[in-house]
């Protein structure tokens, strides 16, 4: 019964994903993803933020398929730059530079690239199946959620966002808090009061998600990149002999499996995602290895594991977004933005009300992975040439595109001004070493938490005990409290800092 249902669902998804139009959007996502993955300094969050307004003109299926493709596509592209030029094209490929670049210096760039792509492909396929299997039961669970359960789950999510953010806990906490405050600007749902709007009618509905995300991630990153000197000397090594040896394959199988499982699990955690997964997988591989001291000198395991893990995590992080409507990281926040632009309220009802969209997107991930392996292995030479485009030219094109995109969303010139302001603000944050991702999560989750909290209190006729009377809600709150207590313990904090140092 369960299997038959699963097959029927996948069949429906297949029929949606295989339409020429959707295949093209999937390809577009994969190509854009690879391109920005290859280019250092242009990340998937920024790209998705910049492309959000454009997706409005697409049908919802095509838009989400493309946005998803950008994310997992970037995981493929990122490894190329990491291996060939020792620059992480993507932050989730940072660890790949350690052994990947060493392999390239030893003339083994081909096998490193091939293993990275094959590992990613394997992980991507497994993760797609994992989503298809996990989504229906989780959705059924989510349908039982009442407002207090949502409130408590979001509390837990925000605590996770703080714990898993890089750098100082205090700074992450500050960012979450600032995000929540920004999210409160606008008209209060329950009373109609205007909050922090200073009588400016453009603020009555609050700050838009797109201008904020585009500014803090997109524009800020462009400014930061322009302040760095250009590297014209990047590409020198030629890639020859793509095929890994039999020994390479044998050594890679176990790390790919471990990376896939670990990455898949970490992807589901709120606050997790590709970056955390690749770091953890590398550390795990070192622990498993009989020769841990050789890591960093061109060990193929050090490429296979993190590359599989980041791709698995990139895909499983869709699970909480699709089933609960809750973003586990900044990329998923973008996906939610993409849904809201199309008038789809993310949550457990999406699977029921838009089954074509839901399953089509999942199945498209498999197609996307297939396309990516074709894009990334035989065509690797073309992608490497992308690194020759001077960034100062690229930046102008991107900025131009951004302004048109934001304007077209609401026909509002003020929103264009807003991305400029948030861009400068984001650059400031970057310089001060504040991570913008917790800000975005706070911005999205804060107002939702407030709404759920007040809705709970309305429905319980003012009785706060419902938060601990509901077993689900109680569970989440206890977890959140434990987690919070845990990170204040001094030795745990040290261990966490050490983990992020690596």
């Amino acid at each position, binding site marked *: 019964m369960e299997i038959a249902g699963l097959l029927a669902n996948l069949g429906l998804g297949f029929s949606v994903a295989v339409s020429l139009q959707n295949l093209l959007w999937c390809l577009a996502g994969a190509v854009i993803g690879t391109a920005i993955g290859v280019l250092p300094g242009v990340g998937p969050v920024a790209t998705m933020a910049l492309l959000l307004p454009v997706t409005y003109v697409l049908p919802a299926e095509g838009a989400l398929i493309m946005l998803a493709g950008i994310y997992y596509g970037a995981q493929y592209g990122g490894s190329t730059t990491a291996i060939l030029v020792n620059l992480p094209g993507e932050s989730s490929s940072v660890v790949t530079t350690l052994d990947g670049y060493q392999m390239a210096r030893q003339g083994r760039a081909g096998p490193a690239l091939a293993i990275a792509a094959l590992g990613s492909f394997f992980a991507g396929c497994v993760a797609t199946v994992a989503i298809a299997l996990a989504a229906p039961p989780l959705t059924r669970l989510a349908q039982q959620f009442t407002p207090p359960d949502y409130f408590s789950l979001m509390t837990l999510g925000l605590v996770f966002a703080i714990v898993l953010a890089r750098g100082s806990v205090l700074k992450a906490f500050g960012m979450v808090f600032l995000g929540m405050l920004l999210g409160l600007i606008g008209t209060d749902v329950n009373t*109609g009061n205007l909050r922090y709007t200073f009588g400016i009618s453009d603020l009555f509905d609050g700050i838009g998600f797109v201008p904020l995300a585009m500014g803090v991630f997109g524009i800020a990153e462009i400014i930061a990149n322009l302040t760095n000197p250009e590297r014209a000397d990047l590409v020198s090594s030629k890639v020859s002999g793509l095929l890994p040896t039999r020994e390479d394959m044998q050594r890679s199988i176990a790390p790919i499996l471990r990376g896939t499982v670990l990455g898949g699990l970490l992807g589901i955690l709120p606050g997790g995602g590709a970056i955390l997964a690749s770091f953890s997988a590398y550390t795990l591989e070192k622990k498993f290895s009989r020769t841990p001291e050789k890591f960093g000198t061109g060990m193929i395991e050090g490429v296979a594991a993190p590359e599989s893990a980041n791709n698995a995590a990139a895909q499983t992080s869709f699970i909480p977004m699709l089933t609960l409507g809750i973003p586990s990281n900044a990329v998923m926040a973008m996906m939610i933005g993409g849904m809201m632009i199309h008038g789809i309220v993310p949550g457990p009802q999406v699977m029921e009300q838009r089954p074509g969209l839901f399953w089509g997107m999942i199945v498209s991930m498999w197609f996307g992975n297939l396309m990516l392996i074709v894009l990334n292995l035989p065509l690797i030479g073309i992608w490497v040439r992308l690194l020759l485009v001077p960034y100062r030219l690229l930046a102008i094109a991107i900025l131009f595109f951004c302004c048109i995109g934001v304007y077209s969303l609401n026909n509002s010139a003020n929103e264009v001004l807003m991305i400029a302001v948030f861009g400068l603000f984001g650059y400031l944050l970057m310089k001060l070493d504040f991570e913008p991702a917790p800000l975005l999560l706070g911005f999205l989750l804060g107002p939702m938490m407030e709404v759920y909290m007040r809705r709970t209190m309305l429905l319980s006729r003012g009785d706060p005990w419902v938060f601990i009377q509901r077993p689900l809600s109680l569970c989440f709150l206890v977890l959140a409290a434990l987690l919070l207590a845990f990170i204040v313990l001094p030795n745990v904090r040290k261990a966490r800092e050490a983990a992020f140092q690596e």
Partner: protein
Amino acid sequence: MRRREFLALAGAAVAAPVIPKASAQVQNWPDKPVKLILPYAPGGGTDLIGRPWAEKLGQSFHQQFIIENRGGAGGMIGTEAASKAAPDGYTFLLTPNATLSVLPNLRKTPYDPKSFLAVARVGDFVTGFSLHPAVGPKTFQEMIAYAKANPGKLSYGSAGLGTATHLRIEMLKYRAGIDILHVPYRGSADALNDHLPNTVQMMNEINTIPHVKAGKLLLLNINNPARHPDFPDVPTLSECGYPNSDVPIWYALYAPAGTPKAIVAKLNAKIVELADSDEMRERMRSINTVVPTQTPEEMVAYLEADTARNVELIKATDMKLE
């Protein structure tokens, strides 16, 4: 040749005062694209009704009718923009009654509802009060009896303060003297998510209809003078004993004050003609909408009556925003 040209020009100059400039403007109207401002974000109910109209009007006048979504501030931003547009017959406002007959009575708005001319009704959403079947009552009267016996036990979800989904149930509460808790949501999709698992027991919104058809919700009545063709057994609110309360969520087209009367008349006539076509009727029916046809004068009277009813309700229940 020269002479003839001169004469022709002279003739035109003489003729000019006879045909006023405005009239030539009207005759050729529309000779460039016409803009319809929708004061809400894309994807909502206003879009649903506005898009077919833009398409059909464009075809009939052989001119583009462009929809411009100017969402924000509960419709105030777009409505303000339309009120300030040039009254040349090339900018119109397509809005539900909320922006003109409700909001200005609840808060200070950056526009005066009197600064618009009524053009035509473009569609009423036909819906009614829905109730979750787990509550118990099966009919409208049973629900009233239940609410009277259990004051404050029922709750309803609305798409936000001041929307029709809020006011209509408040109107019922006021007229029937019952107590139902109001839970405001950000939009009706959000409210429906809590209505389906019985977290809130009632709603008054178009998006409940598919779930009524699927048997997951009960439709107690129709908030419209006539019954819903798909639910011939469901009584109207008047039939339930509450006459003069069955106001639907109604959408209409308005022009900025000062727009030539002749253009308004021309557009009204075309909309009335289209509304009576089988194609438009069918398209509107597919989104649970009917289009009552009225002259601009009849529509002004309808808007005034709607405003008066809302003012009465707002005063009586001491409703306010801000």
